[in-house]
Structure formats: structure tokens, C-alpha cells
């Protein structure tokens, strides 16, 4: 024991860090901040350290070459002892990191912690969020599989829409004219050197400010932030009702960090590593590329935006969102901190959460995409074929063979791109059906060039039978008028 103390003293005499370190550890924080709601920042830092460690381990085996990367991932998964586990830890660590950074940000926003004098802490935090997302995307690229390849294509297509600079930007991102070896190499450099280096610098800055400015006090309704008085009030608060950070508050951080790392480990063991999916071979086009979960919302937004708005929304939207986040502390740097007195803040968070959640959910089953195998894999339900004429059944065959099913569901199965057709005859008259099939419109392709008259007749005859029993199909109003005038019974002529 004595020896350890002596060694410690020997080092501290030269390093002189013990006293300032103790001062930082024992600095007084407002008592209520020793809360389970104040643990997300330290948890994010812990996961970052885990990512650094697992990342270095992966780099020992991984080969950042377009011709070898996929094989080296397979080797990691199957050939290296516990390689699959390290990959799983790194992959799940990335998911947890994005989630925890977002939760941390929401907590900071709702607790008004971005207000004076912590504006710069928030701004640095916004850059940390962008870097975290940058790590997530570049990490997905390093998992060089089909999703990575086509994901890069999507990224390049988005970048190409930048006015004037678009074409140059694409080549700069790809490192050449196509997605290839140079692309992977530069994303490797970004993921392993550039962004982590920036992250370490910005995290240090972020922490420095947390220590210098103090942890944000628990907001109380009515305790208003004023630039002239805040610092004095905060100082008094920590004096009157403060407690040393270590050990008073830190144990909760430690427990939560431990739980998070444990959860990542459990996910890694239970669910295993992510991919790689198919080989990054551009000649294999039977693929449905999808981004990782933190970009799924964007994938959905890109499908659902009106085409003409897309470029404006992508380029303008990111400027508005990032600019808004950076400007936030300047727009509301003073005033109420408590969420109880900030209804717009609370509602904004709810709106954003619901929107992101909905888009992510939609992207999970992408109803806007045709179901490519429905026409050959999902037969027309029997009930739509019973008691039908030969012509109508021929129409059902045309319906399948021309792949209408890929976009239109029948009896609950098939694509969801277009409307379900179980009751289409109650919505469209015969003439309207013919027009819709031949000319398309309303986001449906025209089939006029691809159907001969006999096929069209049969198909429309089949579609006309698609109405619930007891509900009459739609009819042209003028036709009804003519029939009434001729003294015919409308119900008798049409079933």
C-alpha cells in the first residue's frame, strides 16, 4: 500500500493533476440534479468509448478495400474467435448511441439547459449529433454490402441535386465517377480518423463547458433566466443547496452507463451482428436496399414528398433544421426553463417524435413500393372467382398476369401502392374503369399499350364484379336517367 502511494506521489509531483482532478470531482452541483434524468450525457460518452474500443478491434481484421471488405466481414463473422460478437457490439453500440444522444438532446431541450450561459454547450452538442449521425452513415458504408452500395447511390443522388456544385460534389463523395474502391477508402478515413478525431475534440469542449458553467439546475416554474442575474443565482443555489458531484450524483451515472453497456451486450448476444447482406455487386439488382433504422424516417419522407417539392425540401429542409437547432439558444436564451411553462416546446417534441415514429414505422413495410412477387405468389382469393362468367375469370387471369396485384391488394394480400380493389366497382363505373386502366393517372401507369382490346374487356368485366354482396356497383348517373325515362327498371338490368 505504502509503495503504491509513493508511486502515486512520484507521478503527481511531475504531472500535478491530482488537485485539479479532485476539485472537478468534488465540485458542488445543485442537489436535485442528482437525478435519473441527468444520466444520458454520461451514458452517451460511455457508449462512445465502447465504440472506440470495439472499432479498433474491428480495424485489426477489417480490410477497407472494395474487393476485400465483404470477405473480411464474413471472416470476422465466421472465422475469427468472437469476431461476430465484437461486430454485434459495435453495431448495437451505434444504434444505442444514436438513441441516447437523441434522448439526451430532448432532456436538455425540455429542461431549458440550452439557455444562457450554456448556449455554446448546446451548439457544440448539435455538432456532436451531426457527427454521431455521420458516424452512423459512414459505418453503414463500411459494412460494404448491397445496402451500403445502393445507400451510397441514394446519398450521391441527393448530393447531385445541389445547385451548380452537384456534379462535383458527387465525384468528391465517391472519389471518382462511380461507387467503387475509392469510395470505400474515403469513407473508411472519415469513419476511423476524421469524424472520431472531431468527436473527441468536441466532446472535450462539451465536457469542459459542463464543468466550467455547472450542471443545469432542475427547472422550477417561475424561476426565470435573466442574463444579468443568472450566474449569481446559480452560484447561490449550488452553495445553499449543493452537493459534491462525486459521490453524490455520480453513482447514478455509473449505474445507468453500466445498464446501457449491459443492454448492448445482451442485444449483441441475442440478435447478433448486422449483416453483411449480399455482396456489393452492382450486377445483382434483385435487391431491396434499405437504410439502417436511424435513417428510415428519411427513406419514408423521400417516398412521400410530392416530386416537385423534393429537391427544395431535401436541400432547404436540412438547412432549416440544422440552422434552427443552432439558432435556438439565441432565439430563446432567456426566460422560463420549466417544461410546465413551455407548452410549445413540449408540443414540438411530441410532434417531432410522432412524425419520426410514424415515418419509421411506414418505412418498415414501405407501402409505396410495389410488391414485386405478388402477381406470381399470391393467387386471387376464391371468393372473387365463384359464380363468375368465363369472361370475368379470364379477367382475373389478366389481372394477375399483368401484375396489377403488385400494386393493388385483393382480399387483404398484394401490394399497397394503389388502393385495395375489393370494392372498386362501387367507386368507379364501367367507363371510368376502362379509362383508368388504359390511361392511368392518379399515380397509376397507363396500360393502353400493354393490353389488347380483348384483355381490357375481360379485365374490366372482372373488376366490375368487385363489390360487396348487396351493394350495387357504381353507375353513370345519365345512364340511370335514360333507363328511368325508357320506363326500364334499373335494378333489373344490372345486378
Amino acid at each position, binding site marked *: 500500500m505504502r509503495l503504491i502511494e509513493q508511486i502515486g506521489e512520484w507521478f503527481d509531483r511531475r504531472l500535478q493533476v491530482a488537485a485539479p482532478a479532485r476539485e472537478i470531482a468534488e465540485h458542488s452541483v445543485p442537489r436535485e440534479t442528482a437525478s435519473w434524468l441527468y444520466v444520458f450525457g454520461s451514458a452517451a460518452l460511455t457508449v462512445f468509448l465502447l465504440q472506440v474500443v470495439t472499432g479498433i478491434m474491428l480495424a485489426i481484421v477489417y480490410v477497407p478495400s472494395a474487393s476485400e471488405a465483404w470477405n473480411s466481414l464474413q471472416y470476422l463473422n465466421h472465422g475469427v474467435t468472437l469476431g461476430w460478437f465484437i461486430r454485434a457490439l459495435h453495431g448495437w453500440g451505434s444504434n444505442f448511441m444514436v438513441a441516447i444522444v437523441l434522448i439526451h438532446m430532448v432532456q436538455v431541450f425540455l429542461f431549458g439547459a440550452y439557455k444562457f450561459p450554456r448556449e455554446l454547450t448546446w451548439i457544440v452538442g448539435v455538432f456532436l449529433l451531426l457527427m454521431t449521425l455521420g458516424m452512423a452513415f459512414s459505418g453503414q458504408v463500411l459494412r460494404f454490402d448491397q445496402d451500403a452500395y445502393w445507400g451510397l447511390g441514394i446519398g450521391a*443522388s441527393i448530393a447531385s441535386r445541389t445547385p451548380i456544385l452537384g456534379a462535383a460534389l458527387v465525384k468528391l463523395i465517391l472519389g471518382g465517377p462511380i461507387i*467503387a474502391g475509392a469510395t470505400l477508402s474515403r469513407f473508411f478515413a472519415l469513419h476511423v480518423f476524421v469524424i472520431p478525431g472531431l468527436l473527441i475534440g468536441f466532446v472535450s469542449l462539451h465536457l469542459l463547458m459542463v464543468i466550467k458553467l455547472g450542471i443545469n439546475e432542475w427547472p422550477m416554474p417561475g424561476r426565470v433566466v435573466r442574463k444579468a442575474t443568472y450566474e449569481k443565482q446559480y452560484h447561490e443555489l449550488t452553495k445553499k443547496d449543493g452537493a459534491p458531484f462525486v459521490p453524490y450524483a455520480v453513482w447514478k451515472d455509473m449505474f445507468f452507463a453500466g445498464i446501457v453497456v449491459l443492454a448492448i451486450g445482451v442485444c449483441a448476444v441475442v440478435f447478433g451482428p448486422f449483416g453483411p447482406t449480399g455482396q456489393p455487386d452492382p*450486377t445483382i439488382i434483385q435487391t431491396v436496399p434499405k437504410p439502417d433504422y436511424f435513417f428510415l424516417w428519411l427513406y419514408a419522407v423521400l417516398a412521400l414528398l410530392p416530386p416537385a417539392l423534393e429537391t427544395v425540401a431535401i436541400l432547404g429542409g436540412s438547412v432549416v433544421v440544422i440552422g434552427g437547432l443552432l439558432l435556438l439558444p439565441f432565439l430563446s436564451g432567456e426566460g422560463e426553463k420549466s417544461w410546465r411553462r413551455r407548452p410549445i416546446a413540449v408540443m414540438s417534441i411530441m410532434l417531432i417524435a410522432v412524425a419520426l415514429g410514424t415515418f419509421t414505422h411506414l418505412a418498415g413495410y414501405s407501402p409505396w413500393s410495389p410488391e414485386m412477387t405478388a402477381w406470381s405468389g399470391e393467387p386471387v382469393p376464391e371468393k372473387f372467382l365463384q359464380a363468375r362468367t368465363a369472361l370475368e375469370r379470364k379477367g382475373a387471369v389478366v389481372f394477375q398476369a*399483368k401484375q396489377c396485384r403488385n400494386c393493388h391488394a385483393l382480399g387483404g394480400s398484394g401490394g399497397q401502392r394503389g388502393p385495395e380493389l375489393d370494392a372498386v366497382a362501387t367507386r368507379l363505373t364501367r367507363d371510368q374503369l376502362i379509362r383508368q386502366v388504359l*390511361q392511368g393517372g392518379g399515380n397509376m401507369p*397507363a396500360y393502353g*399499350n400493354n393490353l389488347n382490346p380483348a384483355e381490357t374487356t375481360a379485365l374490366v368485366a372482372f373488376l366490375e364484379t368487385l363489390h360487396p354482396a348487396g351493394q350495387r356497383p357504381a353507375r353513370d348517373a345519365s345512364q340511370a336517367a335514360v333507363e328511368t325515362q325508357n320506363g326500364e327498371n334499373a335494378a333489373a338490368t344490372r345486378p
Partner: protein
Amino acid sequence: MENDNAITRRGLFMKLGILFNGLVAVVLAVPIVRFLMSAVAREHQDEYLSWVTLGPVGQFPEGETRLATFRSPYVTPTDGKTADTVCWVRRIAGEQFQIFAVNCAHLGCPVRWFPQSGLFLCPCHGGAYYRDGKRAAGPPERGLFTYPYKVENGVVSIEAGELPTPGGPSAANYKNRERNGSCV
């Protein structure tokens, strides 16, 4: 302290030192920036695009659309499989072709040809195109990208080498710009 504006010997040397370091930085920055921007540099632009052969005309039956593979003309040593690319070859009649990029004009996902319905469909966001590449439905703002082609001695070649992107390098090259909503 005398006059603050007075130039002292040490002050001057410090300023000269800063200036000297700045000069060295600029001298080094020139090659560094040129290295970083080499993928965009003008001297490369001619190397990127060139004519590649797809195969004899006979490989492509008239009235049908077939997938053809070609190797990108601009290849680096570590490209591996990624330099192999595919395109959709539609032989209309005789030596009349339309050769489409597989990359959707929306965000670049690979479109698939369905001869049964005569449509190209994209798996990502549901873009759809007619057999002649014109936009049929979905988010794309234009038709499929087409490669310039030529038929010489019975062999089909295309001018290719750049990733076709909506606003990108080749959007002007890869025509088929007409927008077509409802009628064919």
C-alpha cells in the same frame, strides 16, 4: 511600457515568424488541396466517360428488353466487383436501341424490368417507367437515364463510366427528359 504601437525587435520577429509559417502552410496547402480534389479535377473528366461494348446485336432479340453487363472504363486496382455495372438494353428494331441505366432517376436504386406489365419498377420508393423509359408513376421527376449508343460491325457499344444521378454529371448526357404522366 512605452508606446504600444512601437515596433520592437522581438515583436517584429514574431510577426515575421507567423508570416513565414503562413507561407509554408500555403505552399503545402496547394498540393494537399489538389490531392483531395483530384477526383473532381478537370484533367480526369475525359478519362471517366468512354465507349464500352455490350456484345453482338444478336444477343438482344428485337422487341425485348434485356440486362447487359459491362465493366466501367475507369477502374482503380481495388474496385473488385464494384466496377461491373449493368444496363437495360431495349432493342426496338434492327439497329435501333434504347439503353437505360438501371439507376432510378429518383434516387438511384436499381430498377427491374417486368415484361408482363411492360414496366420498370423501383424497389425503393416505387418509381415506375414505361418500356420506352418514360416516367409512368411515382416520385421520379423524369424518365430513365439513357446511354448514348452506337452499333459498329454488329456490336453494340455505349458511352458510359459515370454513375447516373438526377442533378449529376451526366443528366444532360443521359437524356429521356420528357415527362409523361398519363397518355402514351
